[in-house]
């Protein structure tokens, strides 16, 4: 098998694991069951041990059955402890750690007879994928992990497609789901079985602990990138596949654990979305807030300049005068005037600023919005000394359409409650 072929199988396995995990994991994240997913992937261990003890082999089917059983058992225990009064996180913690401890003892006592290596269970060895062939009547069909994880991916896809509407409702509005008569408990256990099966299928490749990374991280990343469930599912599968590819490449470069690299890349992708997601990214939000602040400040500066021009016939001013009057820092005043100058709303001559044509127009538009809003508040019954401050804040956020509505609602007034002329729309 060529290097390229090996790499292809490994990346494909990783992608299939990540995809299967992502599909189930989206619902875990949405229903705040991420730690239950983690618990199940830890609790799988005793299931595997028991299956091994009972069948005396590492037969895949028996392990799946053992895993599904343990997954159900864990979920059931946690529910039962919850209803007996143990709080949710404590119930989870007690259940999965006890089961895991049981599994570890089991492996210590019985595991070494058939290569049930703890390291392998825990972080897998995806590099062996190309060397683990599936043979059917002597024909080579590709690596076994590809078939197993591919099958699991298809299983998850099928179940989620079949029950899409039900899962969706149960995730977003569990009370309504119950009220409408959906079998909420059945759906819950179904999801947990999928998680358990996916975990077992993947443990040979990436190990139980890293499966959880792929269960939670790509869905959480996708959650930051979209508002729609179907897109979230698609994105999380894509992100998982991407992490698989990049992780493999990095691990080849650094000569380190492949599965570890894949999961680390999942984390890096999340960090990137956390900071730079167009809708939810921290950095993006900060930039947006900054732009908003600047726009409001600039508009306030324009209005001040216009009032200067109107009342004191002072046609030019310095940034310092602006700052002093509005009680801004000198740096803020300088920055604002610079921005207004660059956008052509203020002219600069010999160190002094003055309103340009477009500056006048814009200021008049703001004044129009301000005075119409004051008129509107007046008609609502606000006392005269309560009108200016709200208008001062709102004037920056009224679109031309909204201003038109205000004008209609106040029946096209000429003057505001203080008797000042309202500029018309030009």
């Amino acid at each position: 098998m060529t290097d390229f072929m090996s790499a292809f199988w490994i990346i494909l396995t990783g992608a299939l694991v990540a995809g299967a995990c992502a599909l189930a994991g989206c619902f875990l994240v949405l229903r705040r069951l991420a730690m239950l997913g983690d618990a199940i992937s830890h609790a799988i261990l005793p299931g595997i041990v028991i299956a091994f003890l009972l069948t005396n082999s590492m037969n895949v089917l028996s392990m799946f059955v053992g895993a599904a059983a343990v997954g159900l058992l864990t979920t059931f225990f946690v529910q039962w402890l919850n209803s007996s009064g143990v709080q949710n996180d404590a119930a989870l913690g007690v259940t999965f750690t006890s089961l895991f401890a049981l599994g570890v003892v089991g492996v210590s006592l019985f595991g070494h007879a058939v290569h049930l290596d703890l390291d392998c269970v825990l972080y897998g060895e995806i590099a062996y994928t190309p060397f683990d062939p599936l043979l059917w009547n002597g024909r080579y069909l590709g690596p076994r992990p590809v078939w197993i994880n591919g099958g699991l991916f298809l299983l998850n896809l099928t179940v989620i497609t079949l029950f899409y509407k039900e899962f969706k409702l149960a995730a977003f509005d569990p009370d309504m789901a119950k009220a409408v008569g959906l079998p909420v408990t059945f759906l819950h256990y179904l999801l947990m079985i999928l998680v358990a099966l996916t975990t077992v299928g993947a443990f040979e490749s990436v190990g139980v602990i890293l499966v959880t990374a792929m269960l939670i991280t790509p869905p959480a990343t996708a959650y930051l990138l979209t508002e729609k469930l179907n897109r979230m599912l698609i994105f999380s599968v894509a992100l998982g596949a991407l992490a698989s590819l990049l992780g493999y490449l990095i691990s080849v470069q650094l000569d380190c654990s492949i599965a570890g690299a894949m999961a680390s890349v999942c984390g890096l992708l999340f960090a990137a979305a956390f900071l730079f997601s167009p809708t939810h990214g921290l950095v993006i939000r900060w930039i947006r807030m900054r732009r908003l602040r600047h726009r409001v400040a600039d508009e306030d500066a324009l209005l001040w300049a216009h009032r200067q021009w109107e009342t004191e016939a002072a046609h030019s001013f310095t940034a310092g005068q602006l700052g002093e009057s509005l009680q801004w820092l000198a740096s803020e005043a300088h920055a604002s005037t610079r921005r207004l100058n660059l956008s052509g709303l203020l002219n600069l001559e010999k160190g002094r600023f003055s309103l340009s044509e477009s500056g006048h127009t814009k200021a008049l538009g703001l004044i129009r919005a301000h005075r119409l809003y004051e008129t509107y508040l007046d008609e609502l019954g606000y006392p005269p000394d309560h009108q200016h401050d709200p208008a001062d804040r709102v004037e920056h956020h009224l679109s031309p359409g909204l201003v038109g509505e205000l004008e209609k609602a106040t029946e096209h007034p000429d003057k505001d409650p203080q008797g000042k002329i309202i500029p018309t729309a030009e």
Partner: protein
Amino acid sequence: MTAWLNDPNTRWVLTGCVMLGACSGLLGSFAMLRRRSLLGDALAHAALPGICLAYLISGGQRSLPLMMAGAFLAGLLGAFCVQAVTRYSRIKEDAALGMVLTVFFAFGIVLLTLILRTGGQKAGLDKFLFGQAASLVGSDVRIMVICSLLAGLVAIGLYKELKLLCFDPGFADSLGFPSAWLDALLNLLIVAIVVIGLQAVGVVLMVALLITPAAAARYWTDSLSRMVCLAGAIGAFSGALGTYFSTLAPRLATGPLIVLSAAVFFLLSLFLAPRRGLAAKAWRGWTLRRKVARENTLRSIFEWAERENAWNQPIPVEKIAARRGQNPSRTVHNLTLLAREGLVQFQEGKAYLSEAGRGEAHRVTRNHRLWEMYLMHEQELRSDHVDRDADIIEHVLNPDTVAELEELLRQHGLEPQRPPSPHPLPG
């Protein structure tokens, strides 16, 4: 029996595990009350990259303080990431915990494999994951004991503040307590105890030591101080038991056995605790059901006799069963019990109230009717809406409440008139 204590190494391990168990129980109580139990899990996993980095920085020396410091810093970073993700994005806490747990751990695995490539020791990972209490030497245990003691003493010293923080953070804020700092301190103590315990019990199982003794102790008491002490005691015992069991077979790691001991304590508490335990609850439920059945049966007979004005006429069981909407065999069962108490004469499938029974049935019926009066006149419910409610409440009215209801009767002028004595009374 004490032969296992002869080995000095075992004694060290025992000391370390007992100390660890006690302090985990102590801190775990606060963590549980702050709903932070699983944070310990995340931090225990997050410590791996810290340990690996410390190993790399120290050039391959297995220096315990340095590795603990690395674990500690990584744990703090993990806690910080959980808080940052939860606060600054729409991701909820459970997903944040899960991500920190797994991604940090994965990064740790990457570092670990890098270390192995450059000739480090493989045994490190096993030790980290499951603890290798058996390989603890005196110096290790000394550090463990001192750090555990410190963490424990800090928690005890700040007991009042931590108690307030757990139960009423808003009030703590309003009193001017530095809640954010106390919270951060609690996180720090959790990280510390997790790091200390990693050596003895390993990653996954460390969180068990934080949660299980506290959860077990919760069943025995509602008082925080008792819960904390009990959790510490359970933790300490689990540590001792786990150490003992691990000496029984050569391949058994101490960590899982300590956790299983704690789990057994938890199950025992779950079932056997006096008030909150399942056995006690089942008992209470059973005695209440018996009381209700008894009183309802008495009342049924009383009301029938009242309507027919036939106080000594035996009533067939079927009629009583029909009144209660019950299966007649259940009615037979209830009547048998009442007959044993002497409240009812039950022969040949027919029953009537005895003297004593009439008094008791009267009391029960009176309670029922008092409550119906209350509902009709004070709550202004319609007369056909009151029976079901009274059916439930009548069994649990205590004498004080009955006295209040009688006062209400008087106010509404509905108190049955007692005829005045026709002759002068002595005294």
